[in-house]
């Protein structure tokens, strides 16, 4: 459903993506893993058109994404940004219900607020936080508000950029279950970036490992566990020695 073909992206002399090939089927959950700074977030931004690839093609339903109507795409889309990206001038519930307070999906304030509170409950937040401002919440709570905003309008395509960072193990498990549930029950197509191997195992149909600007390895969870690719095994086991350079 979403396909990347030979996507290149550089910032000045920093060649971040050097020919990424990747595809995600409809209703499937792809997890991208890879070292910090390898360009995982940039892949998502290229798909969304927030960054322009220097070379290569991105296809949606087999059509070049630049020729498709982005508004239609975003209408069925939700994203959790790595940094949360909550609007700090709006309260928590207004953030979560942002799409329902304006535009095509506009609902009454009361309806939108109820949906927002419901979604906050899904991510383990009490209704009391609804009227707070993002700056008044802890980092992990902000992350979850952002997650609630991403899923608020029941999107068909969802990107999660590190949904578990900053969460305690229990909350992390709750979020993994939630993502799995969204993919299975709502039949959404999901791309998740994470460093947390337990959430990879919990939410992935397919895993892709990005290294040195390319997809180094891709396969299912079972294949991942059995793989003897030295890069992959070093990464999932967290060894400091191996083909992936660590600078100390």
């Amino acid at each position, binding site marked *: 459903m979403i396909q990347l073909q030979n996507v290149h992206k550089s910032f000045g002399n920093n060649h971040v993506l050097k020919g990424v090939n990747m595809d995600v089927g409809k209703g499937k959950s792809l997890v991208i893993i890879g070292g910090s700074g390898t360009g995982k977030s940039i892949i998502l931004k290229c798909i*969304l058109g927030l960054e322009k690839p220097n070379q290569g093609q991105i296809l949606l339903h087999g059509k070049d994404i630049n020729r498709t109507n982005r*508004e239609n795409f*975003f209408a069925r889309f939700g994203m959790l940004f*790595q940094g949360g990206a909550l*609007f700090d*001038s709006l309260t928590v519930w207004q953030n979560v219900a*942002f*799409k329902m307070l304006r*535009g095509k999906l506009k609902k009454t304030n009361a309806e939108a607020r109820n949906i927002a509170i419901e979604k906050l409950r899904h991510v383990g937040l009490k209704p009391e936080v609804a009227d707070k401002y993002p700056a008044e919440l802890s980092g992990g709570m902000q992350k979850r508000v952002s997650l609630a905003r991403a899923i608020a309008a029941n999107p068909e395509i969802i990107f999660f950029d590190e949904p578990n960072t900053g969460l305690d193990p229990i909350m992390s498990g709750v979020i993994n279950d939630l993502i799995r549930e969204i993919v299975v029950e709502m039949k959404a197509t999901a791309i998740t970036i994470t460093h947390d191997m337990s959430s990879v195992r919990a939410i992935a149909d397919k895993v892709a490992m990005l290294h040195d600007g390319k997809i180094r390895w891709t396969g299912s969870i079972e294949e991942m566990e059995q793989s003897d690719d030295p890069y992959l095994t070093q990464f999932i086991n967290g060894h400091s020695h191996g083909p992936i350079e660590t600078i100390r």
Partner: protein
Amino acid sequence: MRMSINSALGNIGRSTISFLAALGRVVLFAFETFREMISGPFYVRELFVCLVQIGWLSLPVIGLTALFTGGALALQIYAGGARFNAEAVVPSIVAIGMTRELGPVLGGLMVAARVASSIAAEIGTMKVTEQIDALVTLSTKPMKYLTIPRVVAATVAVPLLVAVGDAIGIMGGYMVGISRLGFNEAAYIKNTVDFLHTWDILSGMIKGAAFGFIVALMGCYYGMNSSQGAQGVGKATKSAVVAASVLILISNYILTEAFFTK
């Protein structure tokens, strides 16, 4: 010698080119703003919030600026007028000076300091914390949601601020004229009213609209193009205020030429 002249010329050339390039980008940004203005959706609530922040909350600053400027103007014109026994012109010159020049220009500059900086800092912070990206993914065009309400609000609010500033400035001149320069109250007011034309006030307000547009546009432009990090936001804020102030002074001259020379 030749080398240094060459490199000096090179420098001038380079900075001219980069200035023109920057100007081109700003003009494109302005065109895009106009184009997005034609079609919906219109964010009325955001517009209202901007009107309050840009217009209403600037009133104290504008009032104080105008009050003291009007007072100082009266003192200066009195002193200047005394050189050729024309002290009686104080009321009319204060009124004309405030409405045509000082009201709009000082008002515009104060708004540039207050509003261009805060718009650039706010939008710049949104940019570096990915809030602008988030807006796009939430089916909202940053141009429509952020830029247009600010630009429209400033274009509407600054002329009104100028009008208020004019009145307060004239009042400042009046207060000084009565208490320090020995003018008769009724005569001062009559002099002011008799000499002031509608066009004096109107031209100043038109200038105000242009300055308001410039201020908000610069704030949005530099905010949207802010580079990463706190330093990027700081630079955007500074650039927005400098660019807005310079453009206000340049366009003030152009508008004055257009309005008052025949």
